[in-house]
């Protein structure tokens, strides 16, 4: 089946040159490595490699043909897998879906196709050298196949919240402004402005195609910066490619639709990629770390053994990229600042994680821009104070107590609480938790495995742990665990991959000789490697395949596990258009039925407000679980609303009531029937997907006027003008300080002192102004 590497060290394929794991320019060192190395470590290792290089470089003839055949076989497996996955999807009956979501209607060959695609990728990982084209095509096709599954089957863009975001964008392009009181998300309008600008400039009036394909596109875009992160790691090509493959597969969180968080995540990945590629300290500083005492002194006892294991000498888990010009680094630094400004203006959580990650990298000495976390924090807090006044003014306690409300709106369904309504949905939700726990714990095991090999993966550790800081920031309506998992993914995928492929590579071009006192450690680790190579190479690939299959099937189950109510049907969109047609002007009150406590999320599961956002209100009504009682209550509520009132029910929302609140499946049909028979009500719109009812003769009430929009304004207090002056000066000084640091050779810090002296009073002044604003404006 596979051609397994023969000679010793063959599979420890060393990566060389400008190695890019994800993008695939990984080359085996077996032929590239100079025989006559001048490295101090050349002795033992060099001898071993010298011995083994020969069979590889001579691998022509039969061996070459066998290897080629293996690649051809994998190509064939891949094409078969793709065909098995996609071709049977033609006849899928979406309406037959059960509480398990999309997986319940998927044909068995499609699931088999997913398994074949996965197996094909893992077989490619088992080959003796990286077949870059094959790996890239398989990676991209797996990502597209998994993430486009529902998009390809459903005629309309899925996920109701995406339609609300379309509503924000429509509002901005129509009114050329925002209304900060309409929705908290309008205080961070950067992303909506970007999409509004782009679609308007391109003359796109219909946002549906953008909504429809955004998840697929964003997942593909994530792979670019993630590949840049991967190439800085000291790992084998297998580890890197497996990590790149895990990334889209483990991302079942569903935060990749057209949303500020999806955009923020892309910025976050770019931010991390730039930091680890071009702002890592010189290797000399890296090497000097991890040693607390002279190598000769040995301490015994369990404690010291654990201590030495934790803090003892360790090879860095990262490679240093070839150094670049200071001016290039200055441009990259300015790009980093622009990235965090855009992220701050677009999303409330992302900049916080950017700052946390940068701070983590600084603390672990993997980032030379030591002032960047402070700079980022100033931008973050300044935006919060000056630009989001509409969000916090008047209820500061709520905001900083538990900023849950806006997050829960976003999660129309991706809740992490287990429902009691439907055992099937509850199982899907448990599977989500299980998958998150599985990935996180395997990541920790991977970290430990690398540590036993004396490799300190600080960057991966920071990427894994820094997102946990967000727990301290916001509650996000119980959704923060999900968001944290989402942000932990880059680090987690790398570390999970290390669990199976832990060997590190040594790059002759970029990796200077280790200091003499670290060499025994390296050799020691090398000696511990098992001798039976075939087994050693096959077992990890098989183990990785088992995990990969579990993750792929887990993905198909949980990613589209809420599909019965996350799917958007044509009639549901039409229902809202009909209401707008019927009332071309003025407010519209959409009465809807709920069976839950709506204090956390007071909105129906419908594609609401995708047009005319500011005109809709959503008064809810608790169901009496009895059709006659509900008809009476609905009629009474519509009378209260007068001519603005409509009662709306949709299939997605009915599925939600059934699955999440345990309302019987037949209840909604019976209610619709009873409503249409009621003499007080008329059917405004009805089809299989949705129904809209209104009073036949609404009580004559004056049409309530719409509230004037609250535009973005910074809000004046006595000290605010001072803050407006301090802020740009402080940002300028902080940026000049970092630019100065880039020009200062390592070890010399004196040049920064004047900037630091300037920063302190300015920072104190700004903090005072921000505190004053919080007090005065609240």
């Amino acid at each position, binding site marked *: 089946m596979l051609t397994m590497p023969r000679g010793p060290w063959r599979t420890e394929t060393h990566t060389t040159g400008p190695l*890019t794991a994800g993008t695939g320019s990984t080359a085996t060192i077996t032929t590239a490595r100079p025989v006559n190395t001048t490295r101090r470590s050349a002795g033992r290792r060099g001898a071993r490699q010298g011995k083994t290089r020969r069979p590889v470089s001579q691998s022509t003839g039969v061996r070459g043909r066998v290897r080629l055949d293996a690649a051809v076989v994998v190509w064939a497996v891949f094409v078969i897998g793709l065909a098995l996955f996609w071709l049977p999807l033609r006849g899928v009956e979406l309406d037959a879906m059960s509480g398990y979501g999309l997986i319940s209607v998927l044909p068995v060959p499609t699931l088999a196709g997913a398994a074949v695609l996965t197996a094909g990728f893992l077989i490619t990982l088992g080959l003796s050298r990286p077949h870059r084209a094959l790996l890239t095509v398989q990676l991209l096709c797996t990502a597209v196949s998994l993430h486009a599954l529902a998009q390809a089957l459903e005629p309309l863009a899925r996920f109701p919240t995406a339609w609300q975001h379309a509503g924000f964008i429509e509002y901005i392009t129509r009114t050329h402004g925002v209304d900060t009181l309409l929705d908290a998300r309008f205080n961070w309008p950067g992303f909506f402005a970007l999409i509004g600008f782009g679609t308007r*400039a391109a003359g796109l009036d219909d946002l549906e195609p953008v909504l429809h394909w955004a998840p697929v596109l964003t997942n593909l875009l994530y792979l670019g910066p993630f*590949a840049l992160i991967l190439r800085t790691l000291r790992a084998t090509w297998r580890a890197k490619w497996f990590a790149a493959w895990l990334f889209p597969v483990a991302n079942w969180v569903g935060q990749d639709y057209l949303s500020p968080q999806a955009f923020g995540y892309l910025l976050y990945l770019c931010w991390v990629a730039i930091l680890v590629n071009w702002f890592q300290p010189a290797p000399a500083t890296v090497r000097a770390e991890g040693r607390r005492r002279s190598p000769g002194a040995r301490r015994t006892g369990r404690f010291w053994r654990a201590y030495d294991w934790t803090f003892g000498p360790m090879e860095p888990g990262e490679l240093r990229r070839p150094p670049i010009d200071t001016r*290039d680094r200055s441009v990259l630094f300015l790009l980093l600042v622009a990235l965090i400004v855009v992220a701050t203006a677009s999303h409330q959580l992302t900049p916080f994680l950017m700052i946390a990650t940068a701070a983590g990298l600084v603390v672990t000495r993997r980032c030379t821009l030591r002032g960047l976390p402070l700079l980022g924090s100033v931008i973050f807090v300044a935006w919060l104070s000056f630009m989001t006044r509409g969000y916090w003014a008047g209820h500061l306690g709520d905001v900083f107590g538990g900023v849950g409300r806006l997050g829960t709106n976003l999660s129309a369904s991706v809740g992490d609480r287990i429902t009691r309504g439907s055992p099937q949905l509850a199982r899907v939700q448990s599977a989500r938790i299980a998958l998150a726990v599985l990935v996180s714990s395997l990541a920790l095991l991977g970290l430990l495995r690398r540590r036993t090999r004396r490799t300190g993966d600080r960057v991966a550790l920071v990427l894994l742990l820094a997102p946990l800081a967000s727990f301290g920031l916001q509650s996000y309506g119980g959704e923060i665990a999900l968001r944290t998992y989402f942000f932990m993914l880059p680090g987690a995928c790398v570390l999970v991959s290390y669990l199976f492929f832990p060997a590190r590579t040594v790059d002759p071009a970029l990796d200077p000789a280790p200091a003499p006192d670290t060499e025994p450690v390296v050799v020691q680790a090398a000696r511990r490697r098992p001798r039976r190579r075939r087994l050693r190479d096959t077992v990890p690939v098989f183990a990785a395949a088992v995990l990969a299959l579990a993750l792929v099937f887990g993905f198909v189950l949980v990613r589209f596990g809420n599909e019965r109510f996350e799917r958007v049907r044509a009639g549901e969109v039409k229902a809202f258009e009909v209401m707008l047609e019927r009332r071309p002007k003025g407010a519209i009150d959409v009465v809807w039925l709920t069976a839950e406590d709506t204090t956390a999320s007071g909105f129906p599961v419908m594609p609401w407000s995708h047009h005319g956002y500011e005109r809709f209100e959503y008064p809810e009504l608790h169901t009496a679980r009895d059709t006659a009682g509900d008809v009476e209550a609905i009629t009474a509520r519509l009378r209260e609303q007068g001519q603005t009132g409509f009662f709306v029910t949709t299939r997605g929302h009915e599925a939600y009531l059934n699955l999440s609140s345990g309302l019987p499946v037949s209840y909604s049909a019976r209610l619709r029937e009873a409503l249409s028979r009621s003499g007080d009500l008329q059917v405004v719109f009805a089809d299989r997907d949705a129904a809209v009812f209104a009073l036949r003769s609404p009580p004559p009430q004056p049409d309530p006027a719409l509230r004037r929009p609250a535009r973005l304004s910074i809000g004046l207090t006595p000290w605010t003008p001072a803050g407006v002056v301090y802020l740009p000066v402080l940002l300028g000084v902080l940026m000049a300080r970092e630019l100065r640091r880039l020009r200062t050779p390592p070890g010399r810090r004196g040049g920064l002192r004047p900037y630091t002296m300037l920063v302190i009073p300015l920072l104190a002044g700004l903090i005072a102004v921000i505190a004053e604003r919080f007090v005065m404006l609240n």
Partner: protein
Amino acid sequence: MAVLVLLLLVVPPAIGVAALLPGLDPAGRAVASAAGALVVVALVAEIMLVTSLWSPGGGLAAVAVISAVLLGLSRIRR
């Protein structure tokens, strides 16, 4: 047509940023300049919105001007 305009929106600033980063390897340069282009367009959109100067045509022009300035800066550097 729409795709062409979108390319017109993103490609010039990407070229501008790439011109400012001559020392990077191709893959790194591609990702950094794509991020730069995204940031330029997003900042233009954000500033138009906050300053009540919303105009997609004007924004396109602003992006073009910024791209030209970035290219000019790279010329000066050389």
